[in-house]
């Protein structure tokens, strides 16, 4: 018996060791026994199956899913419930890890999977109460007729896939993390909505504006931040007459609007964000006589792509476009009668309210002269490999109070929390089966999220654009800065009624467009607060092009979507070069750089070198000009304002460098010093980045969970900030769609990625090269499943 003890101990110890995840810093090495098993582990993941198959599922009728050569599924079902069941299954089969990560991020549950390294992110999400409102939202969906059956069908489809998985079938990322997917619920779908709302909630800089106002003289503040660009070309053209009086106009509570915003940290918004474009031209302007609609929504790019392309056919619906994994239906696409698309309106739908606590316990807060009890909600944050943390979130009249940096002791009032009673599903239901302009307007009246510019065109010849979504009405003057939370008078007074929200149908100019610029001019009766980082250059450039274009073809629209003309450069670079010449300061080498820039055509093409010089110079120029703001920790003004300052020249004190009190620098001095800095910085660049704009910008599309080898690595791309082709380092066009509204409609689409979420699949990134070469895939709907030959097929038969 004794002879067994040692081998038994070693054997069981060895198996235990190989079955245990091993902490490695803030990461984990997966349990290596199953991970290295060639039958189940990572070796097993190298070749995903793309065979046809059939299974029994929770559908009422048989469902056929035919895949074309790009692996786009065409779902043929007898009811919408069966169709979304299949869609849920397909999305999960191709994006389950992305769906999981996205909803965990919104819920503040990343640390359950990834450990301590995401704790700060989770704490922020919990403090902002995203999951709480998603739970309420999912519960409320059931109050609307038909929703429960639909959501249940979708959730069942997702879970059908999840339940079919054993370890050998787990997506690679799960194997690496040694943690499988968890069952999907309607709350996850609500979190998917929330996640998109977070991504689109770009229109607030309350703290930054408050800081700027507290730290700068009124004259400087007004000079830098007040007013709109006089060259603005709004989404809704000026021909639109607003024949109503605004509701809910009130004055705020007396006294200082914000208190105590004096921190030193600067604007932390992500200026890599560039923006989206959409437009529709009427048949009057096209060569074919049919309207053409185009849309390229710009988002942070990842592999797999945020979208999943799909085509759905039921007796009521025929639709093709991109779906958002986690939600049923098509989000941007076309039917056999209409096409629609979206850009972010960038409206401010989040206000921060400064809270006065009674004492350090932070249990009671001041409201209308007396102390009210905050609702305390303990949140347990589970951390993989560590003990859980309990965070107590305080809810006030305004919303949850955060404890984070610049927003400490401020309550967050946000559309995403306030509209939990809304029937979000209704918008998708209606737009997916819309047949005409009336259906389109009805559908977008149900859209309850941060405002979007919803563009539309139909085979009947109509074009339209609407600022859809929830637009709050505030007491006069509130919303741009941190708001005093001591008085209920400062609360929102409702929302702009749908009929009064900006929209236009069939305008005289025969096109509608948006590129995140201001939605309306100053004649619009309601004040509109928008994002300071969405400027008007792209909007102006789109409108200038469409104004002058006639007999437009699809090829023209493709070229416009990929237009690399830098309008801001065209406006500011001649001014900068003029100041440089007046400064008379360049040596022979520097003159060569200036000559190159002088001859630049403002095309920000990836093979061009001039954009590198321009961007580096502009950066140095702006930093030197706004050294005062950097010292104070105050955000920079919008770029159009910088152009104005440079145009107006030395009357502004900002061109004086504050670190040299003995000398008063001028615009010319700034031009010279920054140019020299640019040349020096350029020469110090890594040789690989010196080559051209594409190499300098060094775009890359990272893997969703930042597993570097599963991303693209460096890719050379054209375009950039303030350019229609607004491709920055890793933010850019997530989907390009052009639809000619012939009968039937013909579409041209592409996105940077591929249909599969599996890095081992040939469809993981097979559109990528095509995409960055500016090519599109032609799509016409395949309504009859027996009329074409699929690459493969999945059949679902009822249980």
């Amino acid at each position, binding site marked *: 018996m004794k002879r067994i003890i040692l081998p*038994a101990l*070693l*054997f069981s110890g060895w*198996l235990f060791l190989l079955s245990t995840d091993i902490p490695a810093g803030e990461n984990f090495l997966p349990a290596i026994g199953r991970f*290295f*098993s*060639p039958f189940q582990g990572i070796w097993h993941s190298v*070749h995903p199956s793309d065979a046809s198959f059939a299974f029994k599922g929770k559908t009422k009728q048989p469902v056929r899913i035919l895949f074309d050569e790009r692996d786009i599924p065409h779902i043929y079902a007898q009811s919408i419930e069966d169709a979304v069941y299949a869609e849920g299954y397909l999305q999960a089969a191709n994006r389950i890890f992305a769906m999981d990560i996205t909803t965990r991020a919104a819920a503040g549950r990343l640390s359950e999977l990834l450990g301590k390294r995401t704790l700060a992110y989770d704490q922020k999400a919990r403090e902002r109460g995203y999951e709480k409102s998603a739970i309420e939202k999912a519960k409320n969906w059931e109050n609307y007729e038909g929703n429960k059956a639909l959501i249940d069908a979708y959730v069942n489809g997702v879970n059908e896939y999840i339940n079919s998985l054993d370890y050998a079938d787990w997506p690679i990322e799960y194997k690496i993390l040694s943690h499988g997917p968890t069952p999907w619920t309607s709350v996850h779908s609500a979190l998917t909505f929330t996640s998109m709302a977070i991504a689109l909630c770009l229109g607030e800089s309350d703290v930054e504006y408050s800081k700027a106002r507290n730290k700068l003289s009124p004259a400087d503040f007004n000079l830098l931040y007040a007013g709109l660009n006089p060259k603005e070309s709004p989404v809704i053209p000026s021909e639109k007459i607003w024949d109503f009086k605004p509701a809910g106009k009130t004055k705020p509570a007396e006294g200082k609007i914000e208190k105590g915003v004096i921190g030193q940290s600067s604007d932390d918004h992500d200026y890599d964000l560039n923006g989206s474009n959409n437009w529709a031209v009427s048949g009057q302007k096209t060569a074919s006589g049919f309207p053409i609609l185009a849309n390229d929504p710009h988002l942070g790019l990842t592999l797999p792509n945020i979208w999943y392309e799909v085509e759905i056919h039921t007796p009521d619906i025929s639709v093709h476009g991109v779906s958002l994994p986690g939600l049923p239906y098509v989000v941007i696409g076309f039917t056999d009668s209409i096409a629609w698309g979206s850009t972010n309106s960038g409206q401010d739908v989040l206000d921060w309210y400064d809270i006065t606590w009674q004492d350090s316990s932070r249990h009671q807060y001041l409201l209308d002269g007396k102390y009210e009890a905050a609702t305390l909600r303990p949140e347990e944050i589970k951390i993989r490999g560590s003990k859980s943390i309990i965070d107590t979130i305080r809810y006030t009249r305004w919303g949850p109070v955060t404890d984070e940096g610049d927003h400490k002791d401020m309550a967050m009032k946000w559309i995403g929390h306030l509209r939990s009673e809304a029937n979000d599903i209704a918008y998708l239901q209606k737009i997916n089966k819309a047949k005409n302009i009336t259906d389109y307007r009805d559908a977008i009246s149900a859209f309850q999220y941060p405002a979007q510019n919803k563009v539309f065109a139909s085979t009947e010849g109509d074009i339209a654009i609407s600022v859809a979504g929830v637009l709050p009405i505030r007491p006069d003057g509130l919303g741009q800065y941190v708001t005093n939370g001591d008085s209920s008078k400062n609360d929102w007074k409702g929302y702009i009624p749908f009929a009064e929200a900006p929209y236009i149908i069939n305008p005289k100019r025969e096109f509608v467009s948006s590129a995140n610029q201001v939605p309306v001019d100053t004649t619009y009766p309601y004040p509109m607060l928008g994002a300071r980082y969405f400027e008007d250059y792209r909007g102006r450039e789109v409108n200038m092009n469409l104004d002058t274009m006639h007999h437009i073809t699809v090829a023209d629209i493709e070229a416009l979507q990929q237009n690399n003309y830098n309008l801001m450069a065209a406006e500011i670079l001649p001014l900068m070069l003029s100041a440089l010449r007046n400064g008379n300061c360049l040596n022979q080498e520097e003159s060569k750089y200036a000559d190159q820039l002088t001859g630049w055509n403002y095309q920000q093409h990836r093979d061009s070198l001039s954009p590198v010089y321009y961007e580096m110079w502009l950066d140095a120029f702006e930093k030197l000009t706004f050294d005062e703001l950097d010292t104070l920790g105050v955000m920079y003004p919008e770029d159009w304002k910088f152009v104005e300052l440079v145009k107006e020249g030395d009357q502004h004190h900002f061109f004086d460098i504050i670190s040299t009190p003995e000398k008063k620098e001028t615009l010319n001095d700034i031009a010279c010093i920054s140019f020299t800095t640019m040349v020096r910085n350029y020469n110090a660049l890594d040789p690989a980045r010196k080559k051209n704009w594409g190499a300098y910008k060094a775009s890359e599309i990272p893997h969703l969970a930042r597993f570097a*080898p599963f991303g693209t690595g460096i890719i050379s791309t054209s375009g950039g900030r303030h350019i229609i082709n607004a491709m920055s380092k890793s933010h850019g066009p997530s989907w390009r769609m052009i639809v000619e509204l012939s009968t039937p409609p013909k579409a041209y689409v592409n996105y940077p990625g591929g249909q599969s979420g599996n890095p081992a699949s040939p469809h993981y990134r097979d559109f990528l090269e095509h995409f960055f070469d500016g090519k599109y895939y032609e799509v016409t709907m395949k309504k009859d499943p027996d009329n074409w030959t699929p690459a493969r097929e999945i059949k679902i038969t009822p249980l």
Partner: protein
Amino acid sequence: MKTKTIISFLFMIIGLTGLGFIAPWWAGAVWVVLIAAIMRTNSKQGMFIGAFAFAVVWVAMARYMSFEDGGDIISKTGTLLGGLSRQLMMTVTLLLAFMTGLLSGWLGSALGQTFFPDKSESVPLEK
């Protein structure tokens, strides 16, 4: 002796392969324990056959899968795991299989010698 070794080895190979497709990864280890015990291998035999069988099956399967690795997933995963090359990933797989088989074979032979003693071999020793 030779026959027993070959038969044990073949049984192990068949079981490891079959169980690999349908059972958890550790089921193969249990199978080797069982075969080594039933076949009443001695310790050295058990360790040698178990390690060799396990290594052959895992490496052959990994090698086969690597031919299918058009996306270079193994190298990319190796990079994520601290910069392991494809060859090192294969080496780790080999070592894990070898050690698992070795310990399984050892335990199996110890169990076999304890619970199914081979009387023809043990009688002379007791004399």
